[in-house]
């Protein structure tokens, strides 16, 4: 069993199907595959969004995601993890982020995917700016995302 980790930060769109297939093709040791795709919505709180501009901290972003993938691997028996996060200009309906986890068991795959998404939301150095008819504004962090991430902290 290989513990394959793929982490990519890229401007280009990605193909969710191809990423899932890359982790499962020809393998018979995987029982569960969970994928999460985050997609740019066309409106936010009633305001139409023309596009998102996604900025990141090169270097730190990859390292921070890598640390959380390592932690997920140590917490759950995962076969493979793929995390792809886009940067640059993203228009409504386009992909923003993808997490794919595979495991022998579904609960490990589900939990690891949720854990990774919660941490991407709150501690990976990415920032979204929304462009709409009324101008451009930085998205504010949500308290609910901090709360979601906090549930994974060992007490």
């Amino acid at each position, binding site marked *: 069993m290989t513990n394959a980790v793929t982490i990519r930060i890229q401007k280009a769109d990605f193909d969710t199907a191809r990423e899932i297939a890359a982790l499962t093709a020809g393998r018979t040791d995987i029982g569960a595959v969970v994928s999460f795709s*985050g997609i740019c919505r066309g409106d936010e709180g009633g305001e139409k969004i023309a596009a998102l501009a*996604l*900025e*990141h*901290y090169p*270097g*730190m972003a990859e*390292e*921070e995601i890598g640390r959380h993938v390592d932690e997920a691997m140590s917490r759950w028996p995962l076969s493979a993890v793929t995390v792809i*996060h886009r940067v640059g200009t993203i228009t409504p309906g386009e992909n*923003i*982020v993808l997490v794919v986890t595979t495991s022998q068991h579904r609960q490990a795959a589900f939990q690891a995917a949720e854990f990774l*998404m919660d941490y*991407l*939301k*709150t*501690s*990976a*150095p*990415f*920032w*979204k*700016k929304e462009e709409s008819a009324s101008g451009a504004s*930085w*998205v*504010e*962090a949500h308290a609910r*995302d901090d709360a979601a991430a906090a549930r994974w902290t060992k007490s």
Partner: protein
Amino acid sequence: MKVKYFAWVRERVGKAEETIEPPAGVGTVDELIAWLSKQGEGYAYAFERPRVIRAAIDHAHVKPDAAIAGAKEIAFFPPMTGG
């Protein structure tokens, strides 16, 4: 020491990065923020609510009381909104 700024901190400061030499006595992230906020109008605006600002030293998140001694790269940014 190299300093980087991201998102609205970058916009307010007016640059993405610079090299600084803070005076002796500036030993923590907190103290560096206080010193930076006196370096001009943009800095004052960027750091007007210091508790909102997040910091990283050499690509790892740090708390406001972290020591900056030995840091190669310090970054300041708003709470993250990726994912």
